[in-house]
């Protein structure tokens, strides 16, 4: 658990981060969302002391981070960067093993843990001898994630981790990432400017603007109960799509008037996915109508 209390950072007269407070819970992915320069990355980097705050305090699992040496603190925090930030003179195996080597792990332990992660991230073993410049952007980013996960820290920080990827690669990685069991026991904070990524991955979303945290809450809370017009306007463009996406078929289920024909095939999907699936075949026209009606019922109750 990460607790941030009244943290500020100024660069000259520019307030990069202005009295921000929030808490990131165990086993959740908290997304800090905002446009460039809103202070989200600065906030993130204060957690592993890449940036030192001017004011305020940060606790990890109840311990003030100032009371530890920065190097020791950072070894217990996984960090994924925007450009992967792999070491160009190390091959993949060496890149993944950086932190374990700093922690003086045994060779065998490093090897088995590396192989375990490769499998989970759908990477082949032969990549281990490649150098970063020989990899695709998606592969580099996965290696970056593996490097951050290897020491199995309780905190994972991600700074626009998928920002440099094309849309298709990105959505593939999103899917893998969401289902990664490695994240189950962690507090993850992910910074992004990509609204769909925030809704895709975030258990909770914190929206930032001009150094301030404007609103923090679950996707549904943010969407249906915006704190002010800024939040409302921020999602205006894709609002409807997000509404469909954050509602799972299971959540809408109680409002269905009749059993769906293709019930089994959309069991674990969200409404958006289910509707897309139904719209491809005429035979599902009835299902399409029924689900849409049920969703409208559900939505009515959310906005009250």
């Amino acid at each position, binding site marked *: 658990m990460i607790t941030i209390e009244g943290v500020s950072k100024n660069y000259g007269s520019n307030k990069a981060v202005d009295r921000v407070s929030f808490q990131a819970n165990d086993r959740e992915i908290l997304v800090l969302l905002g446009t460039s320069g809103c202070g989200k990355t600065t906030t993130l980097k204060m957690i592993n002391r890449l940036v030192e705050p001017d004011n305020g305090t940060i606790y990890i699992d109840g311990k003030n981070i100032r009371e530890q040496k920065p190097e020791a603190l950072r070894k217990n925090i996984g*960090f994924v960067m925007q450009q992967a930030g792999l070491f*160009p*003179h190390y091959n993949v195996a060496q890149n993944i093993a950086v932190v374990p080597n*700093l922690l003086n792990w045994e060779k065998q332990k490093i090897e088995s843990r590396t192989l375990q992660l490769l499998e989970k991230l759908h990477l082949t073993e032969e990549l281990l001898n490649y150098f970063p410049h020989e990899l695709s952007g998606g592969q580099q980013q996965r290696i970056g994630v593996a490097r951050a996960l290897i020491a199995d820290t309780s905190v994972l920080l991600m700074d626009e981790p998928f920002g440099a990827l094309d849309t298709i690669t990105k959505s593939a990685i999103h899917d893998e990432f969401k289902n990664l069991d490695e994240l189950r026991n962690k507090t993850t904070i992910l910074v992004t400017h990509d609204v769909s990524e925030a809704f895709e991955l975030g258990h909770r979303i914190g929206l930032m603007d001009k150094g301030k945290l404007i609103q923090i809450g679950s996707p549904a809370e943010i969407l249906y109960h915006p704190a002010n017009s800024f939040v409302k306007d921020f999602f205006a463009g894709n609002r409807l799509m997000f509404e469909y996406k954050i509602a799972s078929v299971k959540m809408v289920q109680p409002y269905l008037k009749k059993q769906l024909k293709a019930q089994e095939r959309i069991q674990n999907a969200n409404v958006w996915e289910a509707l897309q699936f139904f719209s491809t075949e005429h035979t599902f026209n009835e299902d399409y109508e029924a689900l849409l009606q049920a969703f409208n019922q559900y939505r009515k109750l959310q906005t009250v």
Partner: protein
Amino acid sequence: MTEQQSFWEFIIAQHEKLLLQIGQHLGLTFLSLLLAIAVGIPLGVLISRRRTLSTLVLGMAGIVQTVPSIALLGFMIPLFGIGAKPAIIALLIYALLPIIRNTYAGVTGVDPVVVEAATALGMNKNQRLFKVEFPLAMPVIIAGIRTAAVINVGVATLASFVAAGGLGEFIFGGISLNNSNMILAGAIPAALLAVMLDLIIGYLQKSTLKTLRRVFYILGVILIATGLYFLFSTKPEHKIIAGFTPEFMGRQDGDLGLRSIYGLKLNPLVVSDAIMYEAAYQAKLDLISGYSTDGRIKAFDLVVLEDDKTIFPPYYAAPIIKTRTLKKFPGLEETLNLLAGKINDSIMTNLNYKTELLKQTPEKVAKDFLVSQHLYKKANLGTGETIRIGSKIFGEQYILLEMYKMLIEGYTNYKVETKTGLGGTKICFDALMNDAIDFYPEYTGTGLLVLLKPSEKTIAKVSKDSRQTYVYVQREFKKQYSLQWLKPIGFNNAYALMMRRSQAQELHIRTISELGNYCAEK
């Protein structure tokens, strides 16, 4: 073809000396380079950490780089004496700038994203430096070392000026002895060394980190080995430490004559005449080969040993000029001869003393002298053609050149252009033969022994008497080169062996024979 053969003959005859010089040259280059690496890389890292220092450090290294090498070597003598030590330190200073600059550029040029990644993963400053910044900056740092290595091979030739040996002994000896084979025997290996080092280091630049680490260990071993070599090899224990110029080393009226006629085997160090007197004065050397009219004899309180078996032929100075040139410039001969017979040994020594010790400019000394002789005339406007005067690279020649310039400008309508500091006899003489200059003051002895090089019998015959020497060179130069020796200026600037007055008195040495006897005692 005969030229080619004689070059190989020279190499074969001198191969021991050549190998020694190559060894010394490599030793000087490597040792200074490794020391420069040991100093330069940490400095480069330091200024990459504290950027405010970078302008200062890079500026300083840049300024030192611009100091002429021979001047830098000169500064080293009072501090470090002569031999390998001052040479290595001077070379070290020259190698510093490229190494510091490239280390700085390499370390600051590492992608900040990668550095941040290293920090974020929990590396401390040292881990970041050695695991990330150094390896990534290595190609740039090695490029700097490569530049420094090539510079050092070149500058190391000048090490012979301070008795540190190296291929400069052949190169500068060859230039002053007019011996092309000797020059090439020094220059070709020096060039090859530079090219080889460049290729080897260029190869390292592209190699992997593992190879690099291995190479660094090997270099460490070389460093220690050459260091020990210099430590134990450069301390010859002789009663009398002699330092001779490269020219003197190879001449019959020099070290060769001392060996054959006086039986004096001194094992001398090879040293530049620019710093020889200073070194003698500082008691780094006991015996030097100087010139009898040198002002520094007076300045540094040295005493000339009497040449009791006359191995040094007379060196009367006179301008040499092409017969063709004299015809081209009517009135020039009479003007130049105005100086004939006007300056004797003591006057010349005194004039030299004024420039060497009293630091008067050659121009002022020349003018004062001409005025005192009622020879000085105000310069004409000079509407005629230009006459180019050359001089060798020492004070006396500068004074003579100024006098000739004033005389020509005062007595004729020609314009004058001066080309001072033409390194040695060979350079001056070649410049004259190739019409790069019109005349320069030369010495009869040099003309005889360095340029004409007649048989030993002829030398023995004509060098006993100054008049005979002059007549002989006059005749032969006209015949062989169509060159004229004008009338002698009057002084005799012969070679001479000299010691500190105090030491000579203490050891009761007045003549070269007495020196020989002293050295023969055990």
